[in-house]
């Protein structure tokens, strides 16, 4: 018997802090697909906040940490298109002119995957034995969509969920206004953007908003909740793994 692929889970700082359920959902999905999952304990942040704030040295220091922790696995999987994009698309550029580090960064980039893309494109996972009764709409987070081409993968997996209908927004590909530190640096503009997104979500009539990036989901969930909307917000992994017993993002505890 061939040994199981060894998968390093980079859980992301936001999932670690706000929503461990997403991490456990990812673990279940990857394990059920026949892989062995490892969670290096020393992982913290991918360095994206520093990178997008112009602090290349700060981003680089964290990139070194991530590379050292994860380069030994067969695959690195991340329940976030944004952090996966950071490693896959941007890490190599942080080490320009250093062949040794560049090679390590490129090797890590090549085996790093956003969760739903890993399940469908790499593992070829078929219909999952899970159910969710209701209508969902899906927000395409910017980095996953435009840096990694994550679009059909989550929809393909959701299409097989028993009882679930996906109803698209008018503009599922428009930014939600989160943008990392943007949402607090330019909070009024961020609010105007998430306002339009929340309206688009509501106009679908869906009772569940799904997405693959916790930053965006915290933002949209926070806005919907402030508006008094009853639309639940969850990470797509939670529904796919059937881990929906707990409250939704920002939802009241039962």
């Amino acid at each position: 018997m061939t040994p199981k692929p060894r998968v390093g889970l980079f859980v992301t700082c936001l999932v670690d802090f706000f929503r461990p359920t997403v991490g456990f959902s990812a673990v279940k999905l990857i394990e059920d697909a026949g892989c062995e999952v490892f969670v290096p304990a020393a992982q913290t942040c991918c360095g994206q906040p520093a990178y997008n704030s112009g602090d290349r040295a700060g981003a680089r220091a964290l990139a070194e940490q991530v590379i050292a922790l994860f380069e030994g696995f067969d695959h690195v999987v991340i329940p976030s298109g944004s952090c996966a994009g950071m490693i896959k698309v941007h890490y190599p550029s942080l080490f320009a002119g250093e062949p040794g580090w560049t090679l390590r960064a490129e090797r890590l980039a090549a085996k790093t995957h956003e969760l739903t893309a890993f399940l469908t494109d790499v593992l070829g996972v078929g219909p999952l034995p899970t159910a969710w009764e209701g209508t969902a709409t899906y927000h395409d987070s910017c980095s996953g969509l435009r840096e990694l081409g994550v679009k059909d993968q989550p929809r393909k997996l959701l299409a097989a969920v028993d009882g679930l209908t996906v109803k698209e927004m008018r503009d599922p590909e428009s930014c939600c206004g989160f943008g990392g530190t943007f949402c607090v640096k330019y909070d009024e503009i961020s609010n105007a953007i998430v306002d339009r997104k929340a309206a688009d979500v509501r106009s679908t009539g869906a009772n569940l908003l799904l997405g693959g990036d916790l930053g965006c989901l915290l933002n949209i969930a926070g806005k919907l909740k402030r508006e008094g909307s009853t639309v639940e917000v969850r990470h797509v992994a939670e529904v796919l793994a059937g881990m929906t017993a707990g409250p939704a993002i920002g939802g009241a505890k039962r």
Partner: protein
Amino acid sequence: MSGAPASATFPKNARAALANPPLLKAIAHIEETLVSGRRRAVDALPEFEALRDAGRDLKAHTLAHLDLYLEAFEQKVVEAGGHVHWAADAAEANSIVLDICQAAGARTVTKGKSMITEEVGLNAFLEGNGVRPVETDLGEYIIQLRGETPSHIIAPAVHVNKEQVAADFRRVHTDLDPRRNLDEPVSLLAEARGVLRERFLAADVGITGANFLVAETGSTVIVTNEGNGDLSQILPKTHIVLASIEKVVPTLEDVATIMRLLARSATGQEMSVYTTFSTGPRRPGDPDGPEAFHVVLLDNGRSAMLGTEFEDMLRCIRCGACLNHCPVYRSIGGHAYGSVYPGPMGSVLTPSLQGLETSAHLANASTLCGRCESVCPMRIPLPKMLRHWREKEFERHLTPRKARFGLAAWRFLADRPRLYGLTTRLAAWGLSRLAGKSGALTSLPLAGGWTRWRDLPAPEGGTFRTEWAKRGRH
């Protein structure tokens, strides 16, 4: 540049825009007009993506040999009987144009739409020197009456609604019947056409920009939808083209390639209504055309971008697609940027033109969502270049102190996994307790930027890594 807010006060400008309902209503139309139009046009052209590659490659090639193509262009203009003037900066460009106007004894000049004349502030300069510029593009004419600058590079008056235009026309066109009906756009158009027709005939000099300069033939090319550019350049005795150096392309074939991208990206048209080629002055036997033909080539910081991480920006063909698809532009419109060029392309270009000190907000006021790059016909990596400006800001210690401190604190923690684990565990527990059963926080000290507008979903309780360790996993 009269009354334009500065980019240094961007947050304040944005706040004012967000509190301006007529403005927000006007810019909301961009979705159903320009964005939908582009999508339809692109969907109808299977080779659009391949054309983008071709456009990018031919512009990149031209920029790599810019000196060669500019000199070839100059030679062809001269051979056709025209004149070429080189302007290093805005002041030089303005004084060259004024000299030509004065030599022609000009009192009135008509202008086709030109962002370069906005960049150098030509109108104010001419007015200050006794020459009256008349904008002939309808949008430009409207904002000239209003004393404003363009809020969009192809739709300069996109921020204005038709009621405002009617009021402006009544205010300025005082010789017309005050009881006339101006309720419909078509009546506004007819009135502007009537007024402008007289101006075209009275003008001594016509000034236009250029969408392309063709090295092969010495031609300048403009595309318009109103034909106003044609009348500006054919009727007066002197035609001045003011264009920036990166507008040059090698051949007429190259013009055709980029034209297939330009209108589709801009408005969703297959082609603009008018495409006009000007090659030298009127020749013996020509039925019309100017007696004198001048091309003023403006650098204004562009050659300094060559060979830098900002060189790709010089591929820009000013279609405006990045503005139309930008969530920030779509929230606040163009004036809030406080720069000649708004939106993503403006935020990349402006620091090159006016310095980073007064424009650092522009590079930061982006979610880096990447939609601009995904629609750019020239495949300009706009988010990457916005990030480059942020890096320059950080290197030069222009980043605001609060943000620098936040970054340093985050790095300190993230570099120390044990301390990070402890801190996040405590904070997650605390916030979760604070939120209680509600599951979200409606206000939180130090997070006012977030909680002013939305609730903060509370952490579930334990961090993932703690819970993972509790389960005895590795």
